[in-house]
């Protein structure tokens, strides 16, 4: 029996509640941001005045904007790739080990469960230039001790390290799940042919785990744009603007300076960029992995 083609309104009834929420809290805000980005509205002139692209022009000329974007890029690149690689490696190792599996899984995964606010506090303590355990450890080995959150050179890196710690277990589990669906006989065949550990995984695991890879990649890209809580609690974007990222800069413009026009312009830029990424990712990957939408 073929699937019935519904001509009526019935399917939409099922979709309605979800659609309403998405319309109000995702799509209307997009329109709102674009609309207000073309207006000037701030603390000392609270009535919106149409000013066309002036917010965007100011933004392009603003060195802070470019710093913030660059920080986002660095943060993204250095959280996404190291985490993905380590997660895959750990998943493979755990899959291959016979004992202590649960211990490894839980020990690596629990950071995800700790509320970011709590994690931020723990890391502020660990990263303290004097008291903190990280610098203590470096001291023992005679290595240089960065100022971490107190230095504009290392504040972003402190956040990156914390992000890796927090997300590693989650991606590891996803890869682990993906590994379960790789047939074991492939490995056995490779071993018989004399393939070493690296060769085995390079030729079998990595290609076959690609759906998970894509998923992890997408999730981690989104995560890298969501960074807020830890910045608000640990550095407030500082010292200077060294750990400021786009979402935090939007927040500052909206709620600290009450520059709604500029905040909307920044939001619009972020939205466009994220949508661009969506197109890129799905365009690129849908050729490689088949996702049926029908």
């Amino acid at each position: 029996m073929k699937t019935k083609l519904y001509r009526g309104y019935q399917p939409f009834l099922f979709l309605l509640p979800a659609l309403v929420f998405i319309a109000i809290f995702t799509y209307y805000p997009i329109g709102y941001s674009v609309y207000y980005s073309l207006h000037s509205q701030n603390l000392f002139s609270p009535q919106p005045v149409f000013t066309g692209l002036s917010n965007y022009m100011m933004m392009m000329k603003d060195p802070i904007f470019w710093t913030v974007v660059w920080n986002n890029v660095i943060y993204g690149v250095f959280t996404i790739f190291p985490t993905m690689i380590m997660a895959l490696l750990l998943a493979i190792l755990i899959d291959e080990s016979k004992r202590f599996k649960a211990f490894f899984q839980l020990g690596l995964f629990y950071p995800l469960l700790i509320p970011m606010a709590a994690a931020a506090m723990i890391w502020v303590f660990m990263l303290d230039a004097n008291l903190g355990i990280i610098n203590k450890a470096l001291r023992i080995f005679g290595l240089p001790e960065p100022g971490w959150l107190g230095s504009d050179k290392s504040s972003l890196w402190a956040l990156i390290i914390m992000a890796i710690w927090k997300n590693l277990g989650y991606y590891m589990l996803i890869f682990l799940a993906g590994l379960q669906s790789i047939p074991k006989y492939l490995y056995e065949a490779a071993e018989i042919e004399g393939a070493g550990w690296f060769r085995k995984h390079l030729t079998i695991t990595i290609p076959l785990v690609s759906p998970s890879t894509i998923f992890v990649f997408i999730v981690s890209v989104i995560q890298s744009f969501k960074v807020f809580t830890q910045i608000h609690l640990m550095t407030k974007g500082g010292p200077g603007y060294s750990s400021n990222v786009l979402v935090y800069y939007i927040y500052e413009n909206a709620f600290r300076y009450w520059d709604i026009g500029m905040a909307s312009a920044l939001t619009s830029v972020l939205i466009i960029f994220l949508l661009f990424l969506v197109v890129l990712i799905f365009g690129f990957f849908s050729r490689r992995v088949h996702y049926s939408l029908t």
Partner: protein
Amino acid sequence: MRLKRRNSGLLKYFFLFAITIIAIIPFYLVIVIAFKGSKEIFSGNYLLPSLTPRLENFKIVFESAPFVRYMINTIIVVFGILLMQLAVVIPAAYAFARMKFRGANFLFILFIIQIMLPLEALVVPNYQIVRSAGLYNTLIAMMLPFIGSGYGTFLLRQSFKQIPKDLEDAAIIDGCGHFRFIWNVLVPLSKPTIVTFSLISIATHWNDYIWPLIITDSQKVRTLTIGLGMFVQQESGADWGVLMAATLFISLPIVLLFLALQKTFLESFLTSGMKG
């Protein structure tokens, strides 16, 4: 040959242990320091558990701010979100998975795009919307933007799709309506996915920060994360013991919940098709 395998085996275990222990150190520190006094902490020797644990830290935490109320608020918000998400997402996933209709692809893409646009990117307009609806500073306001979950729809659609057509045909023959079918067939069979999604939703929204931060200000509706954030600003630099006690209090419920349900969770996770 065998020797090589055992050595490389040892190396693997060593590596795994090293990394796992490093990952656990932060939590260990929280637990240990939560029971210490500041003099002990300042001395720099805080790595080993205290011989005289200081329960007073916890007393101070509860006296300084109504953390129990924050906990209750958080529970209400998190479970409210989950229930409404499921109520809204299950029908939507059903429509996408089992019904063919015009515009299905387009609408589904709208849901997928929603996944890519985190709330953090849209705080300003969402703030204005909720504020003008007069819902500022309410528990419900903290739930609203998250209910339409593209992620949940996506996951459940996949899971529903995997239910064999025969079951559906049989149900139709039996005269089963849509809702009966969803409730009695699809949902039970999709339990792993639903469980996984629920746990992830709970863990995610337990964590919410920026949204509660801007949409509430009074203690009555404050959630744990904001409560901790504010508490930190007061006590910061002064008493790490008390701070860690608060941190421990906030982290513990979810970690314990997870430990208790670990078998269920890991099973669901690994079999639910989360892999992609």
